């Protein structure tokens, strides 16, 4: 739904192309407080401008915004905006926080935008200097984070003066601001939700200081550990886990799923040859053409041979017995007749 909203917003802005429309759509989105965690591709400057547009400032500012927009090089993309923020200063801070530039120095557009924003405030020079300072500070923080060097970050933060609001100083973890490496010039930002709570609090849960004991390993460093044989401890742990959760089936289908896992039920869709995998590899002619086993050990004529041919004929029609069992059957007969050779010779039956 968020994407649809953004698309409709994009359509509107591309059609109108003027700042008031952008402001209108922004205000509409203000009314829908949903939490959008998606990736919104936008330019850093655009986010700042979008936020400023949400401020409902006088027309003069919008004219300046229009001018700034005219200079843009990127596709406009409006992102959902925060509804009520406590003070404009904090909003500026967030605005500057959400944007990030690619280079070490501040983007001149950002500076222009900051001065434009500051012009609406009563104390223009102070606000402008504060905005620029905040931008530079944020630059340093994001650069240090990009390098992945947390200790530098600590040094940088320690150098910063503690502002009125300690939230400003929190290092934003990498998942909130991701850097693009393909040089498109914009980053994926975490959208500010309409609820102030979500913004403020999400930072507190995961973006506090770390213990700083472990360092995240990269994939190259980490070799996959050799798969260990499950020890009795693991079996016990798994057992404990299974016992503590609720595994009872809620309906007949879930019960059948449990039975399938235990092996008590056919697997659907039913394969007629389930369980007969070894038999599949035995070619049929070994089942049917068993005369070759009669070649040695049995006389080639006479009642014994006749009997054995009947045995072989019966075995060849038997689908229930494996080939090995059939061979053993014939071998039993071979041994039997060889044991009884003297009786057969007495009866003149044993013709060799």
């Amino acid at each position, binding site marked *: 739904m968020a994407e649809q909203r953004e698309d409709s917003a994009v359509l509107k802005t591309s059609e109108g192309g003027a700042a008031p429309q952008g402001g209108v759509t922004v205000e509409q989105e203000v009314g829908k407080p949903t939490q959008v965690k998606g990736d919104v591709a936008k330019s850093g400057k655009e986010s700042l401008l979008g936020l400023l547009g949400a401020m409902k400032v006088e027309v003069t500012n919008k004219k300046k915004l229009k001018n700034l927009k005219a200079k843009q090089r990127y596709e406009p993309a409006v992102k959902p905006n925060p509804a009520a923020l406590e003070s404009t200063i904090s909003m500026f801070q967030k605005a500057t926080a959400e944007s990030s530039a690619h280079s070490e120095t501040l983007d001149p557009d950002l500076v222009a935008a900051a001065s434009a924003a500051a012009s609406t405030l009563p104390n223009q020079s102070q606000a402008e200097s504060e905005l620029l300072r905040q931008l530079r500070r944020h630059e340093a923080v994001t650069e240090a984070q990009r390098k992945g060097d947390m200790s530098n970050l600590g040094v940088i933060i320690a150098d910063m003066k503690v502002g009125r609001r300690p939230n400003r100083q929190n290092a934003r973890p990498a998942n909130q601001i991701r850097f693009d490496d393909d040089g498109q010039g914009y980053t994926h930002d975490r959208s500010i939700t309409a609820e102030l709570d979500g913004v403020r*609090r999400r930072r507190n849960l995961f973006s506090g200081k770390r*213990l700083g004991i472990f360092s995240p390993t990269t994939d190259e460093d980490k070799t996959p550990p050799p798969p260990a044989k499950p020890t*009795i401890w693991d079996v016990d742990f798994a057992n404990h886990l299974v016992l503590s959760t609720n595994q009872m089936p809620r309906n007949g289908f879930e019960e059948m*799923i449990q039975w399938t*896992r235990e092996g008590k039920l056919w697997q659907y869709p039913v394969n007629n040859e389930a369980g007969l995998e070894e038999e599949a590899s035995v070619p049929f002619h070994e089942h049917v053409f068993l005369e070759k086993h009669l070649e040695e050990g049995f006389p080639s004529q006479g009642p014994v041979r006749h009997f054995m041919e009947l045995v072989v004929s019966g075995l060849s029609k038997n689908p229930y017995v494996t080939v090995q069992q059939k061979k053993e059957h014939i071998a039993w007969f071979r041994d039997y007749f060889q044991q009884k050779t003297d009786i057969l010779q007495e009866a003149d039956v044993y013709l060799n």
Partner: protein
Amino acid sequence: MAAPVRHVGHYINKNSRFLLNNLDQLRGHRGFGWTTAVLQQSATAEKEPTESTEAIVIPRKKTWSKEAVLEALASTVNRDPTAYKYQFQDDPYLAPRTSAEFKLFSLSQESGRSAAKYFINSNPKFFTKDFAEPHIPCLMPEKVSLLLEEVSEEALKERISLRKVKAAVDMYDQLLQAGTGVSMETTHDLLDLICLYSDREPVQEGGPETEDVESAEEANRSKGRIRRASDFLKTIWRENNNAERIFNLLPERDTHCYSALIRGMIRHGAYVKAFDMYTDMLNNRMTADVRIFNALISGAPEVREKYNERWDLIAELLNQMNQQKVQPNLLTFNSVLKALRRCGSLARTQALHTLSEMKALGIAPSLASFDHTLAAFYKAASPTQGQTDLLQEVMSELAGSSFTCQDPDDVLFFSNVMRICLDNKDIELAYRVQSLVEAGENWRLLGDSHQQTIYYGRFFSLLCMMEHIDVVLKWYRKLIPSLYYPNVQGMRDLLQALDTDSRLDLLPTIWKDIQLLGHANKSELIEELLALMARETHSPEVQESFAVCALDVKSVFNGDRGTLSLEWSTSALCHITSLLLRAKRTQEAWEMLQLFKAKNRVPSEELMNEFLLECHAAGAPDRAVELVQLSAAFCLPATPRLAQQTLKDFDLTDEQRAALSELESAGEPTD
């Protein structure tokens, strides 16, 4: 000639591609006159965009799991809130209606299954014939008795796999005495076995009937948790047991041996020893593995007293872990957080730091991590001034995800979260938790029936407290009794909610539910119900239904249904009587009055007044006189006034007047 050529041309046009392919052969073999025409046609055909033969991509064959069909079918079925749990859908007589019945029936099902398994395993000679095609291994008798008797490593492995601790140790000793070496792997397994069970025999799971009955009784005592009896025995690590002895005898000890011992010691309570063994290991310059560290961290609060000392020990362990290049896993951090619960005020900050660390390392926190963190912030007794910020963050973090159980403590998450919502009276958050429970397979993580009861109980009380009665009743029908059998407190909350929203007309239906749930013998519940019914006068239909209900309650008290009869209390009697009176069931009300005398209870003054009024309305002076005499028999202080009123209002005979005036005067002198 023209027509055939045209026809041929038309034919060629239609089948140009086919002809083009065969054109070379044609040209090679024949030299007909119309080859030029063919060439012309083919030229035009070539001018058309020839469709290139598309590369046909054969899609990769999908493999489905063996349960895919069934899972698809199962996804079409929703839960039916009017049905009982699936495992009881057999005989309607055996459908559990109260929570006690539920526990009893589920325990009996389990014990039936394990009894059957026991019989099969102990008499394998009767179960040799295998009918199933293909073979079903789990229905065949399992090997429970030893086969190999000779002194060999195979026999030792067999004993280990059958989990016979003593036999395995004996076999090992015999092997050592015989001089044959035992492989390292088998030694590891042996040490694992001994340490897991702390040198005792494991309790047999498929034990005989008696053991199941015992476990059932124990389970009933501890609120009906279905558990093996072994869980209740806290085993102790004895001094100089076999594990240590074998360990000391080993010529070389590697990490696995240490790991087995340390984990066993921590599991069975020998914490100091475990830490000593760990320092021993460090002195031998060996690196520990992640499981050793997990065990040590969980045992850290036991070996230190002060909060900051505990935390220092944990931090030191983590640092050593880093130095030894052992990667932590989810269980490491979960044990850190669990240990932090016992570190007092340090828990809040450090828990958040630990969560950030987990995030930085890319280990997704499980429900248990959040549970421990929240426990540090929301203590059960202390109020948090309605601040549920951290919980809201956690909920937004978790919203919509589906979990599997990765830590045994995951199942405590939901009930604790609901407790926090209840303490802070936050109904919105409770709805979010409930939607998380209903997402995917998360309902499995509510745990066993005891945990489920706690969770739903808290949710229902919160609903009764905060929501309008229609919403409450909607949830009531959804949850009860298919998911949750409310206890007395839950029913009282429901009665309270009915009272708040003035839906007392629903009381008789609730009374029927109370009877179904088996709470009809709980006196305080009945008292409250009667008090609510009798408090005000309602419309006639409602009064009539109340009267029926009151008679029902009376039968419960009298033990008419075969249930244990309750002790009549004064208030109960009064309420029932007044309810009957209001519904104009005078005869029954009079019978109630006699019951007062029989049970030695004194009726209240209002009741007498009501009776008098009713008699006046019915125009029964005899009754009125009888009433006053009854009141005198009870030595009620209101007797003279009653007598006076009767004399005034009713037409009485002389003797009645005489009796009444006597009563009137009898009560006058003050003592």
